[in-house]
Each structure stands twice: as structure tokens, then as C-alpha cells.
């Protein structure tokens, strides 16, 4: 048996004339932290949209735990355990912070109208989910906003909420789209601890898009570099630094812009 949890094979999608992802192939090992880096417009977010089912590929296959998922609807993919966050963070502004988190609860009997007549099961689940949500809110330090509308949160706080909500959904694999951008450094430290803790306790697999190279090098088992819709390098963090294609496509542009 292989230990790959996710296999993306030659996947492509274009929008009009733009080939956002253009034959990308990559895979992710169970229990690993894999980072995707690459310049803006490289197709990283589009790759996440493809894996999570938000958009369907023109061609190629995506396998999760050995099964094809590229034709499944997003909620079916989430049911299998792939949970994503959104670049720039998405919160439901007119639900409270706590309700946003509770939205992440899986197999909630209260989600079925038939269980309207089974308040016992509903209430028991709600109580458990609420406790779990409050615990997470404390961990990320925004419990004082629990009963406020999420729409009043700052950008950084929304990111935390988006991440915590994903954790509420009992993921097997987490797709995090720039989770640390715009979050203050001490909090990033703390988040990394939370994630590390989850990883050892629950055997979570992480695929994350991150711009800060230092963070990437510190936390990743593996780094995938994308440019112009393709994977141009893939390997251990330190090997990526020495890769000429990466220096040209990514590190080079970074130098040029800075």
C-alpha cells in the first residue's frame, strides 16, 4: 500500500483564455505537512478549488484515499474529510462567531428536519458542539466575541475563525489558503502550536499555501512550487532553496519586487 492520501494527476482548468492550472501533478503523504508556494497567479488557490470540488477540472484526476473525487460535489468531498479555508478568510457575517464555529459540526442530527421531533438528540449534540466551539475560541483568543456577529471581526480575527471552523469539522486533511498572512506573529506562533498539537493527536494531514518562506521552511515536510499553473519543483524544504527553476520563477521575482 502507498501512504499517499491525496494524488493530483495532470489536472487542468482554464477560465476563458487563462490556463489557471495547466497539467499539475502532485501528491501528499499521510500525516505530512506539505506547503505550496509560488508567485501570485500561479494557480495555488485554483488548485485548492479543484481539490475541494468548488470547481471541476477540464481534465485530470484527483484521488483522495485512493478514490476519485474530482467529480464529487463540494459537500461530498467535505464529508470525506477534506476541509478547506479560504484565502482572505470567509466568515458568515450575520451569524455570531459561535454560530460560525458550530456550523462546522459534522453529522449534526439537527441538520435534518426529521429530527425536529427528536429534540433530545439535537440538544445533546448542540451542547457538545457548543463546548467544543468555546474551547477552540479560547485557544485562538477570541472567546470574548463569541456572541457578536462575525461581521465585526477584523481581518486577522476572521482568519482565526475560518481556521477554527475548519477544525470543528473533524478534518482528515486540511487545506489552508494563506492562513497566516495578516495574523500577528505571536498569534502565528500559537496557531502553529495548535496545529502541531492536532497533528500529533489526530493524525491530520496539512496542505497549505503560504507566502512566508521562513514559516514554510520551518513547518513543512515537503514543499511544492507552482508557477503558471504547473508544478515546477517538489521536494524537501532545503532542496527547494537550491533549485534553479525555483530561484528563477519564484525567489527571483521576490528579489525583483523587493
Amino acid at each position, binding site marked *: 500500500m502507498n501512504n499517499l492520501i491525496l494524488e493530483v494527476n495532470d489536472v487542468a482548468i482554464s477560465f476563458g483564455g487563462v490556463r489557471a492550472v495547466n497539467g499539475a501533478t502532485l501528491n501528499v503523504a499521510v500525516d505530512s505537512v506539505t506547503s505550496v508556494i509560488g508567485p501570485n497567479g500561479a494557480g495555488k488557490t485554483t488548485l485548492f478549488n479543484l481539490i475541494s470540488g*468548488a470547481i471541476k477540472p477540464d481534465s485530470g484526476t484527483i484521488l483522495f484515499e485512493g478514490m476519485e473525487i474530482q467529480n464529487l460535489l463540494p459537500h461530498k468531498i467535505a464529508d470525506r474529510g477534506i476541509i478547506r479555508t479560504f484565502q482572505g478568510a470567509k466568515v*458568515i457575517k450575520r451569524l455570531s462567531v459561535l454560530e460560525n464555529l458550530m*456550523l*462546522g459540526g459534522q453529522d449534526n442530527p439537527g441538520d435534518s428536519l426529521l429530527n*425536529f421531533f427528536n429534540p433530545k438528540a439535537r440538544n445533546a449534540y448542540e451542547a457538545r458542539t457548543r463546548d467544543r466551539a468555546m474551547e477552540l475560541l479560547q485557544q485562538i483568543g477570541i472567546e470574548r466575541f463569541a456572541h457578536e456577529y462575525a*461581521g465585526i471581526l477584523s481581518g486577522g480575527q476572521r482568519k482565526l475563525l475560518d481556521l477554527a471552523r475548519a477544525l470543528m469539522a473533524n478534518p482528515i486533511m486540511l487545506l489552508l489558503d494563506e492562513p497566516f498572512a495578516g495574523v500577528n506573529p505571536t498569534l502565528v506562533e500559537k496557531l502553529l502550536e495548535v496545529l502541531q498539537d492536532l497533528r500529533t493527536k489526530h493524525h491530520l494531514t496539512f496542505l497549505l499555501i503560504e507566502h512566508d518562506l521562513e514559516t514554510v521552511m520551518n513547518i513543512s515536510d515537503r514543499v511544492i512550487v507552482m508557477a503558471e499553473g504547473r508544478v515546477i519543483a517538489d521536494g524537501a524544504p532545503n532542496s527547494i532553496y537550491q533549485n534553479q527553476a525555483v530561484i528563477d520563477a519564484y525567489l527571483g521575482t521576490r528579489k525583483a519586487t523587493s
Partner: protein
Amino acid sequence: MNAIMQPGFWIFILTMSGIYGIFGLGLQVQYGVGGILNFGHVGMMALSSYTMAILVISHGINFWIAAATGVGVAALGGAFLGLTTLRLRGDYFAIVSIAFSEIVRYVIFNSDNITGGAQGSLAIPAIGEGYPSYTNAWDSIMNHMRDFLQPIFGDIVNREFVMALTIWSTLAVLLLIVSRIERTSWARVLRATREDDEVPAALGKNVFRFRLQAVIIGSILGGIAGIYWALESTLLSADDFLTIVTFYGWMILILGGATKVKGLPFAAIFFGFLYGGTRFFTFWPFSMVDSAQRAYIRIMIIGVVLIILMMKRPQGIFGKRQEMVLE
């Protein structure tokens, strides 16, 4: 002016506000919780009332079974509308829903042999020598209730009084059920879909299912309102189900505060007053126009009230402003 002094006037207003309150409650589930713009809600009223009337008059079916079937057909109408159109963007749903209710009305108007066509329920073919009425069973229930209540509450209790009481009891029960439903996690997911499809879907929620269920629940409520409408008016005509009726429901919804049910009964009474009261606007300046034109004044007043509300209090009289305007 005299009419306003009569208890009958107020009972009429209560009856109308109760029926439209139930009708508006359907929109509350769909729009207030689910953000679904249904402008064809009156179609469900038409489906349930005509189904009930036809089953009773043409097929001699027991009133209760006929009424339940009518509500069931309204639910099916909602399911059909939802299954065909809910996957489209919200504004498309709004447009198609208007078309849906207009098609229902045209079909009723043009199916002479089944619905009585332009002549209304009086021309529904009756079985045997029967007179085309669908209210017999209901009338006898109302009369029994009247005979039971009259000794207790006195002469104010007549058929209309009992009708108003029944309708408001129904509204109270439905308000209770709906407010309970809106405290479940089902409603929480539906509230999330009001703002965004991607987030709930990424958390494993089948957004389409939640929306479809909301439309069906709303249609059942619209169907119940249709049955009461039929019983109150005793005659049905395709003209009872013009698109303007849908907007009566919208007015109640917006007036009461779309996101919560608690303002709805008060808004319904306010609407009932406008609806029933304007026909007694026989004094100056309304005396300058004839009665047919006065009917339009009612619609104009309702329109003006809606516009003022949208500008000054988008959250309605009782709603929470933040839940309407937060970006």
C-alpha cells in the same frame, strides 16, 4: 365611517390578517432565514385552494382529506419550483417564481372543465345534482363551534368570529412551530446559505437540500393560507391569485422584520387594517374617486409604506438592524 365602529369590521380585519399572516410566515422561512426571493408565493395559495375545491365539488371527497391534499399539492408546487430553479442564481429564482404563479393562474383561468375557468369555482362541475360548494363541512364545524362558544362569550360570537378565532389559533400554532424550527441547526445552516454558498458547502452541507426544504416549508404555509382563503371567500376565482397578493405577504414580512417571526402577527394586523380599512375610505379626499379606483389607492398606500420602510427601517419594526445591513 360607521363601519369602523362595528365589531364585524374588526373581525373581518382579523380574519384577513390571520390568513395573510400565515401566508407571510411562509415567506419568512424562505427569505428571512434562507434569503430566497420568492415572488410567486401566491401560486401555492392557488394550488391548495383550487385542489381542495375541485376534490370536494367534483369528486365528493371528504373536506379534510381534500384540504390536506391541497396543501400537499402546494408543497409539490414548491418542490417543483425549487428543483427546477433553485440551482440558478437568486435573482433568476425570483423571476421564475413570478412566472410560476402566473402560469398557475393562467392554467386555472383556462381549464374551464376542471376549474370553472373565468366563472370561478361556481362553474366547477359538481357530482350529481350537487351545488358547487366546498364549504359545507367547514360551515357545520363553524356552526357547532359558534353554538358552543355563544353561551360563554355572548352575542359577539357569530360564524365570522369563530372563523377569525380558528385562523388566529392556527397562526399561533404555526408561529410556535416555525420559531422552534428556526432555533435548530438546520436553520443555522440555512442562515449561512443566505450569505454564502461556498462556506457551508466546504463544511459538508448540501446547500441545495436546505434551500429546497425551506421552499417546501414555505409552500406548505402558503398552501394552508390558501385553504383558509377559500373557506373565507366561499367562492374562488383565478383573479384572487394575482401577483399583487404575493406582495401583500412581502409587506407583512418586511414590516414585521424579515429575520424574526415575533413581529409578524403585529405586521399582519397592520396590513389587515390597510387591506380591509381602505375599502371604507369613503371620506374626503378619497370620496373624490370611485370605488374601483379606491381599490388601487390601497395598493398605492401599500407600495408607499413598503418604500418608506425600506428606506427608514430595512429591518422592519421589530427586526434587528445589524442582521440586515452588516457587510
